[in-house]
């Protein structure tokens, strides 16, 4: 009944969740809900609203589930290969959704008005026949006069801005969510227990995969048992050798990165007209070969844990790709007439060639490795699906799309096609060429890392490129929706001046001038946010200390419990011994003596602890 009272006191949404969380059978839950319904003081009208709201929510959810793309395929992949490989496909699907949204938004707000303009003003069509609606250059700066005036300039700018903002928010929320669920305090100590009890993947349904998983678990357990002895200290000469190897490999990888960047830069300058496919070809070739080369470093370097190895590999790959993208963007920012369309075309070609190379990479990475591993060099064995490398490839592909949205609004359409085909290629390649991973990967943490990688270097980089373009660079004179303006952002200024003329909209102008354009506002906001961050940081430090104290307290309680149990057992033993002694020595007065002894013992023990029932 306490439970019912608690549940009645909660809000309806909390109550629904609380009942769902109860570890009871369906019958018991149904009973509780029935009790709540009949003891609550809600009006019947309220009940009806609640059920109809829930039904609405559940209908929305069921509609979403019927539209679930690739549900059956994911189940198949998860069943055979486990959750860590499945996380790659889930990530691919998530990025695919970003592009679908982007395409719909761009097509609806940018392309359709432009097509309407082409239809109503056919003479424009001839002049800009060079460019299709794919690229920036073919968009006009006209205003569509109709029921509502639709300014192309504003439409273009705000669509892109709002889309990037929504992407950023979605990424931040997803990152925060997975960080909250998957943040682990100190996981290095619990490897044995974790492997045994938590790592069995219940979603594996294929018999061979299950057998393989069992083998892998056995091997891992044996390794971890033998690793106990491996935590000895390395001698200083070995440490020096390891340090030398680390330094050498990092120098090599950095110099490779810088060399590739420089060569791309010179290649761009040599190829004056960006009409050929040379630059995209070289860039994509490098993107495919150099990461494979970095993976070879693993043979030489010995990191203390496998996780550090993966982090080092990922860091190197990220630095390499950022460097290439940076060089390309720097070159593009310095090109001449109608440069936005040129950049758009270059990006379009880069995306297509990258797609071709992804397919080739699948061929080399997986099919050839399989052939080599099974026929030519059986020692290598069947390859595993390299989740980290594949995820980085699709993050890079998505970054290209994000950079390209401003210059070529319909690029997401190409990206949608690319990811759709890539999904099936990777699935087929996985099924035919790869085996399930030998080490049970940390799928949840990797998902957090992937999202963080997507957001921090790549999304923010793309956003800053687009931001720099709109803020500082002058739009080209003769093409595009922002022709003739000083910078793209001045579109908003012009619009605000027009809005000022409309009566009753003083607040919009006020917000624009006092909030968005004033530096003091940003300064104050930054200070406030820094203070809040500092406070939260201190709170979390305090909580960490609290956790340590509580853990110690639990251990102490356990020790207290065992100490008291021991003392109790000793007392009981000594008392039984005394009883036996009394009985054996003085038979006559034994009973009286015994009872007296028991009495004194009882009295003395009552002072310390509750006595158990004395049975002789």
């Amino acid at each position, binding site marked *: 009944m306490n439970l019912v009272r608690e549940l009645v006191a909660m809000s309806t949404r909390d109550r629904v*969740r609380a009942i*769902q*969380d109860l*570890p009871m*059978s*369906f019958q018991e839950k*149904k009973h509780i809900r029935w009790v709540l319904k009949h003891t609550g003081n809600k009006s019947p009208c309220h009940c009806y609203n609640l*059920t109809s709201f*829930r*039904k609405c929510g*559940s*209908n929305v959810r*069921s509609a979403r*589930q019927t539209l679930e793309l690739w549900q059956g395929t*994911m*189940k198949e992949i*998860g*069943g055979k290969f486990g*959750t860590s490989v499945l996380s790659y496909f889930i990530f691919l699907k998530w990025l695919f959704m970003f592009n679908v949204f982007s395409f719909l938004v761009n097509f609806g707000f940018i392309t359709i008005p432009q097509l309407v303009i082409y239809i109503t003003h056919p003479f424009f069509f001839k002049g800009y026949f060079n460019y299709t609606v794919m690229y920036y250059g073919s968009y006009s700066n006209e205003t569509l006069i109709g029921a509502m005036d639709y300014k192309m300039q504003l439409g273009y700018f705000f669509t892109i801005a709002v889309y990037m903002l929504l992407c950023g928010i979605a990424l931040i929320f997803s990152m925060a969510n997975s960080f909250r*669920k*998957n943040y*682990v*305090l*100190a*996981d290095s100590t*619990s490897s*044995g*227990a*974790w492997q*045994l*009890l*938590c*790592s*069995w*993947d*219940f*979603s*594996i*349904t*294929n*018999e061979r995969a*299950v*057998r393989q998983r*069992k083998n892998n*678990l*056995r091997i891992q*357990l*044996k390794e971890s*048992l033998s690793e106990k002895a491996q935590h000895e200290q390395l001698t200083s000469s070995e440490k020096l050798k390891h340090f030398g190897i680390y330094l050498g490999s990092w120098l090599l990888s950095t110099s490779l990165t810088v060399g590739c960047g420089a060569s791309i830069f010179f290649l761009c300058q040599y190829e004056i007209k960006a009409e050929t496919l040379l630059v995209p070809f070289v860039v994509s070739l490098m993107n495919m070969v150099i990461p494979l080369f970095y993976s070879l470093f693993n043979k030489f370097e010995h990191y203390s844990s496998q996780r550090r190895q993966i982090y080092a590999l990922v860091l190197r790959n990220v630095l390499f790709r950022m460097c290439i993208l940076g060089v390309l963007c720097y070159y593009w920012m310095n090109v001449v007439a109608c440069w936005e369309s040129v950049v758009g075309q270059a990006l379009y070609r880069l995306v297509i060639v990258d797609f071709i190379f992804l397919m080739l990479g699948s061929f080399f990475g997986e099919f050839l490795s399989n052939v080599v591993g099974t026929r030519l060099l059986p020692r290598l064995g069947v390859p595993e699906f390299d989740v980290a490398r594949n995820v980085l490839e699709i993050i890079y592909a998505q970054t290209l799309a994000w950079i390209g949205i401003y210059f070529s609004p319909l690029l997401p359409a190409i990206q949608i096609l690319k990811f759709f085909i890539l999904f099936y290629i990777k699935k087929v390649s996985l099924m035919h060429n790869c085996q399930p991973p030998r080490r*049970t990967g940390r*799928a*949840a*943490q990797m998902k957090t890392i992937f999202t963080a990688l997507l957001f921090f270097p790549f999304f923010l980089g793309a956003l800053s490129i687009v931001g720099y373009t709109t803020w500082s660079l002058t739009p080209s004179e003769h093409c595009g929706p922002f022709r003739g303006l000083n910078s793209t952002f001045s579109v908003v200024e012009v619009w605000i001046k027009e809005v000022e003329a409309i009566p009753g909209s003083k607040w919009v102008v006020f917000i624009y001038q006092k909030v968005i354009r004033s530096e003091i506002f940003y300064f104050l906001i930054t200070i406030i946010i820094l203070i809040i961050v500092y406070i939260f940081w201190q709170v979390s430090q305090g909580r960490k200390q609290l956790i340590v104290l509580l*853990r110690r307290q*639990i*251990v102490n*309680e*356990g*020790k207290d419990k*065992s100490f008291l149990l021991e003392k109790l057992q000793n007392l009981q033993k000594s008392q039984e011994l005394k009883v036996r002694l009394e009985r054996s020595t003085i038979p006559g007065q034994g009973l009286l003596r015994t009872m007296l002894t028991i009495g004194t013992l009882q009295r003395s023990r009552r002072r310390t602890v509750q006595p158990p029932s004395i049975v002789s």
Partner: protein
Amino acid sequence: MGNKQTIFTAQQLDAYQVSDHVYSILFYRYRDLAPQLVPLDYTNNPDVKLPYELIGSMPELKDNPFRQRIAEVFSEDGEGNMTLNDFLDMFSVLSEMAPRDLKAYYAFKIYDFNNDDFICKSDLEKTLNKLTRNELTEEEVRMVCEKVLDEADLDNDGRLSLDDFQHMILRAPEFLSTFHIRI
């Protein structure tokens, strides 16, 4: 599904807290195991129990080393014979929507072979044997179980209580995604 019509009362659907779509998918899966035993009309809550052999032959469960324990934990009679409610319970706990504490509670019950509300050393040994096809030596089994107890047993009573288990789950975030069966 063609012209067959399942009949549930609105109350039955409401009370289950999953979407109608998922409820009907699960019901059809349950019925497909034994179409002659399970009626289409559930308004009168017929008392139908499917034996463990049928449940254990589902493709999602037939290769799972813990299928017997899963069926036993979720069945009313503790023997693995499941009614529709048990079946729905099982798949809802094993779905991705179930909260972590609920999953931890049921995982604990699954690994507790002797049903004494504690995972003692013999339970650990049985779990280990199910997970490694009985190929570890006695010595290795003993060492692994000792290691597990060392790391997870906080109150030092030689066995894992539900709190110890939940504490360990907190430090293994993969648990939410691995304790999951897709239907």
